[in-house]
């Protein structure tokens, strides 16, 4: 590359050089060039005036009232989010628990009622109905417990 071409190419990159946006190798090349090129050295100084000025612009600050108001709102939102998250976890656990009870309940139900069923002469179809009622009651009880638990936690948080 001729000296003139290199000079033009480097001059084009000086803004990014001052912005610290070049790779280390490229920075070295520019530094070597500007050490022997007064024109590019002067150009770097002009760019530095701009970059330095940008770095020194005054930082506007939010008012204390804005900060405090935002903090209060964000804290309330954080508490609400945390509460919702906990409720989701509790609900998930209750759902898993309910399904476990339901699935595990079937063989237990058969075992416990097999002797009684033979005495009462209850058919298989009726046994399913009894099991469905049992499951429904389990789910309703679990759901009610979750709702009550959630309402109680919300009430406690409001009092806190």
């Amino acid at each position, binding site marked *: 590359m001729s000296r003139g071409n290199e000079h033009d190419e480097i001059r084009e990159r000086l*803004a*990014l050089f*001052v*912005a*610290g*946006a070049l790779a280390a190798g490229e920075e070295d090349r520019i530094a070597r060039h500007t050490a022997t090129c007064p024109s590019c050295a002067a150009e770097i100084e*002009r*760019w530095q*005036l*701009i*970059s330095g*000025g*940008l*770095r*020194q*612009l*005054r*930082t*506007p*600050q*939010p*008012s204390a009232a*804005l*900060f405090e*108001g*935002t*903090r209060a*709102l*964000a*804290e309330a*939102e*954080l*508490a609400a*989010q*945390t509460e919702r*998250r906990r409720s989701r976890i509790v609900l998930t656990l209750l759902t898993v628990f309910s399904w476990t009870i339901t699935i595990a309940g079937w063989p237990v139900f058969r075992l416990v009622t097999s002797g009684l069923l033979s005495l009462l002469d209850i058919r298989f179809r009726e046994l399913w109905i009894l099991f469905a009622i049992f499951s429904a009651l389990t789910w309703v009880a679990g759901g009610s417990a979750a709702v009550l638990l959630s309402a109680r936690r919300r009430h406690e948080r409001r009092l806190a």
Partner: protein
Amino acid sequence: MGGDAAVLRLRRGDPDALATLMARYQNRIYRYLLRLVRQPADADDLFQQTWLRVAEKIHSFHTSRSFEPWLFTLARNLAFDHLRRVRPGSLDEPVSADSEEETKASQLASLDLGPFEQLLAHERAGRLAVALERLPVRYREVLSLRFEEEMKLEEIATVLDAPLSTVKSRLHRSLDQLRSMLETGRTSEVRE
């Protein structure tokens, strides 16, 4: 950093951690928002929305990532949504001439200098702030992130959700445009 103790505590729902992070980032986030939307009232509103969004989304934040770019991304998304809603086209259009009055960003003071140097620096800084405000929003933001927030290019790319090459070229064009405005004294009709 993503592993910041305050960030970890915030993920567990600790309100003190929220206050800590707000105190740490309040000036930088506010400045960035003000650079984007330019109007203090809008910046106030977006500042509040940003922290509400932090409280809302912190559980989905991955601690393997860095908190700072994530925070600035939230602020940026809100600011750009606001600009699209309130001033459609403002993301590409030049700044209108009706905002020539001195704004908060142009009310600048200089560093601890003598009276004469202070006057010169004040005047220079004032011109720079006005020129910065005249730039399109995408140019203002990349300059603010690089020189005011002193973010690395990779972090800026994360905030902008753009490739590194785009960040570099935008930074280059922004500086060229800013310098051109300062040298010619032209402070309007700037396009990307």
